[in-house]
């Protein structure tokens, strides 16, 4: 063994030890079909295919010949083709599906709680119906694939230990531990009424350590991947109460089917806002702003929780009441290093079925390194930025960094003060000259140029003095921050969160059973009622409005929002009435306002005249 390779081997051992020391504990939801598994086992159950748009895909390598080495060699495959693995060859038929669900599936142990549709409003249900219809036009994973995948994994993987793929990245500020978990299938839609299904599912946990010289590496932040999101909302600070842990191991609650990561157990309402609706909402917000600020009014939507707004809504069940995996459990992880997995480093294709879904939700994902377009993932090349940690130094560094910054600022302020004094002296010198020239009986032609010079010198001096003021303020702020840090005080651990995932309240809708039945029927009934009303009254808007109002009223009863409903209704009536009054009396209103303005102007000007 050469010196270089032995050094690399020593690094790998150290990395693996570090990964082992902080590895997370996973808590699944009861009824979950899949758990993190080794990719070698999975690859042995797949075919490698390559296909072009509108053409029959070609099987490049058949099972069980697909290995990591094969994938690494294949790399990105032909540039104009989509390269993918296919796990399930034959979906279960209807009979097999019934047998699986009634006799074999762990899903029998899963209790969905309050019906998803009862957790969202009427508009959300209508959107949901439109979303379901969208599958007619989109590519999708066929029915029976999820159950076939679950059955295959149960038969082949059995009680094999769960696996993660670890990667250690050292940046100037943090040592980042990334734990990649691979699930054979995402059955979120099929089994949990979620957004999508797809073969192959990669999930990520990132831990951010600071290197303290005295104490060694200490965990500062933990970030859990959820639904392709990125940014500060994914991470929690080590001292945040929401981040549960056993020893040095953070606990991750895994969403059933979706395998998204959450910090606290519970049911999470996941909102997916469609782009046109987001634009509409922004415009409504601007109108509301005028309503609130200019007219000092309150709106019915003020303070409304975001999950009530117009968006597709799904529930992520991350209850943690199922199997526990990882440290201090009966199912410890088998740890493998990413750098030793050629397929993870080289294969840029999909890790499962290609469904030709133009929204991509039903297509399998690419691996940890690549985006579907072949570019590198942010979480791969910039794990610090992925969790929004640029600009957030480790705690152990911050006081020292502030001291360095203060040193620089103080010397910079000294230089600025000297420059300001020089500029002020220059302005005075120019002022003296100008005053002398002005008193001459025949001022020279250059006088105007001198005045401009003086003005510029004055402006320069003012700018430098303003800079000194700002530097002083910054120095004071840094000194205060350093004092707090040295006293052991830290900022609120949740200050960086803008839209954190929060579990649903346990309190369900009023009269739950009835509310669930209503939620299941209401969207369809509204459409049928609309058709019936239109058939009887043709294009008369009033009966349609009454029908809609009736539905919203019933909705508000179930969701304990009757007051909001009454308020919104009365505000709506007032605005319509106001519009009618303006329409009917626009001329008297215009004349009155103009007359009032005239009277006010006269009164105001006379008051000024009297006060002279």
């Amino acid at each position, binding site marked *: 063994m050469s010196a270089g390779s032995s050094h690399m081997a020593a690094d790998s051992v150290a990395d693996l030890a570090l990964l082992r020391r902080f590895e997370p504990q996973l808590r699944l939801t009861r009824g979950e079909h899949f758990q993190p598994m080794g990719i070698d086992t999975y690859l042995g159950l797949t075919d490698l295919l390559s296909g072009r748009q509108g053409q029959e895909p070609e099987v490049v390598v058949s099972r069980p010949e697909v290995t990591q080495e094969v994938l690494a060699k294949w790399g990105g495959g032909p540039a104009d083709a989509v390269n993918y693995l296919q796990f399930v060859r034959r979906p279960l038929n209807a009979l097999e599906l019934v047998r699986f669900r009634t006799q074999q599936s762990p899903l029998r142990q899963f209790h969905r709680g309050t019906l998803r549709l009862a957790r969202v409003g009427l508009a959300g249900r209508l959107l949901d119906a439109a979303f379901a219809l969208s599958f007619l036009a989109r590519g999708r994973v066929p029915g029976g694939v999820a159950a076939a995948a679950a059955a295959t994994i149960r038969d082949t993987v059995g009680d094999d230990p769960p696996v993660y793929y670890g990667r250690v990245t050292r940046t100037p500020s943090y040592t980042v531990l990334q734990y990649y978990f691979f699930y054979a299938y995402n059955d979120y839609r099929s089994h949990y009424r979620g957004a999508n299904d797809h073969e192959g599912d990669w999930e990520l946990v990132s831990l951010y350590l600071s290197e303290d010289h005295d104490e060694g590496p200490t965990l500062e932040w933990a970030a859990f991947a959820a639904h392709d999101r990125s940014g500060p909302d994914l991470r929690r600070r080590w001292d945040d109460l929401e981040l549960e842990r056993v020893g040095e191991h953070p606990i991750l609650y895994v969403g059933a089917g979706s395998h998204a990561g959450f910090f606290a157990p519970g049911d999470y309402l996941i909102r997916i806002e469609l782009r046109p609706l987001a634009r509409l909402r922004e415009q409504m917000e601007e109108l509301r702003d005028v309503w609130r600020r200019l007219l000092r*009014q*309150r709106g019915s939507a*003020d*303070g409304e929780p975001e999950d009530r707004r117009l968006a597709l809504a799904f529930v992520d069940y991350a209850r943690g009441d199922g199997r526990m995996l990882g440290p201090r459990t009966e199912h410890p992880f088998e740890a493998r290093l990413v750098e030793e997995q050629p397929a993870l480093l080289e294969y840029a294709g999909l890790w499962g079925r290609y469904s030709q879904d133009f929204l991509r939700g039903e297509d399998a994902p690419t691996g940890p390194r690549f985006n579907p377009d072949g570019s590198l993932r942010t979480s791969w090349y910039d794990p610090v930025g992925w969790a929004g940690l640029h600009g957030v130094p480790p705690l152990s560094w911050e006081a020292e960094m502030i001291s360095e910054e203060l040193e620089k600022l103080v010397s910079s302020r000294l230089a600025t003060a000297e420059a300001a004094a020089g500029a002020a002296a220059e302005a005075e010198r120019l002022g003296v000259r100008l005053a002398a020239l002005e008193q001459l009986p025949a001022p020279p032609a250059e006088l105007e140029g001198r005045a401009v010079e003086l003005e510029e010198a004055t402006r320069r001096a003012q700018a430098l003095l303003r800079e000194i003021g700002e530097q002083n303020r910054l120095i004071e702020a840094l000194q205060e921050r350093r004092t707090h840090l040295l006293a052991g005080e830290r900022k609120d651990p949740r200050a960086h969160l803008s839209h954190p995932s929060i579990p649903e309240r346990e309190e369900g809708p009023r009269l739950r059973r009835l509310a669930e039945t209503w939620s299941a029927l209401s969207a369809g009934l509204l459409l049928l009622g609309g058709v019936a009303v239109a058939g009887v009254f043709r294009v008369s808007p009033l009966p349609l409005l009454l029908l809609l109002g009736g539905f919203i009223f019933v909705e508000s009863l179930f969701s304990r929002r009757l007051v909001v409903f009454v*308020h919104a209704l*009365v505000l709506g*009536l007032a605005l319509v*009435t106001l519009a009618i009054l303006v329409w009917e009396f626009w001329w008297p209103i215009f004349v009155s306002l103009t007359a009032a303005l005239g009277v006010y102007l006269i009164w105001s000007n006379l008051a000024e005249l009297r006060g002279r």
Partner: protein
Amino acid sequence: MALLLMVQATLWGLAGSLDLLEARPAFPLAEDLSPATLALAGLNIVVAVGMLLLRPWAWLAAVSLQGVILAWGLLTYFRGNPHYLAMTVAVSLVLYLNLREVRRPFGVEELHPRRGMREREL
């Protein structure tokens, strides 16, 4: 606010009384409903007293009352028999009731309960 409601109650009471006394031409507001206008006047007084005493229910009751008047106003308008004075007063009252300063004493600045994260012990 209570004073405004009292004024409104007086208007409705007057309208109802005039209607009962068959003095419709003198006060066109009472053409459609006479017992109802008297009832509205009575309700107005109750709500006005509630507002004077800063009862939490009074704000919602006042808003609801104006809602009834507005709905009636719109109905009569679309039937070709508008009561612009009643409509104007009701619109003004709704906008006034909806001001932050008016809502605050009744504890209804925000109608939606805030969702907070459950505190859990580790």
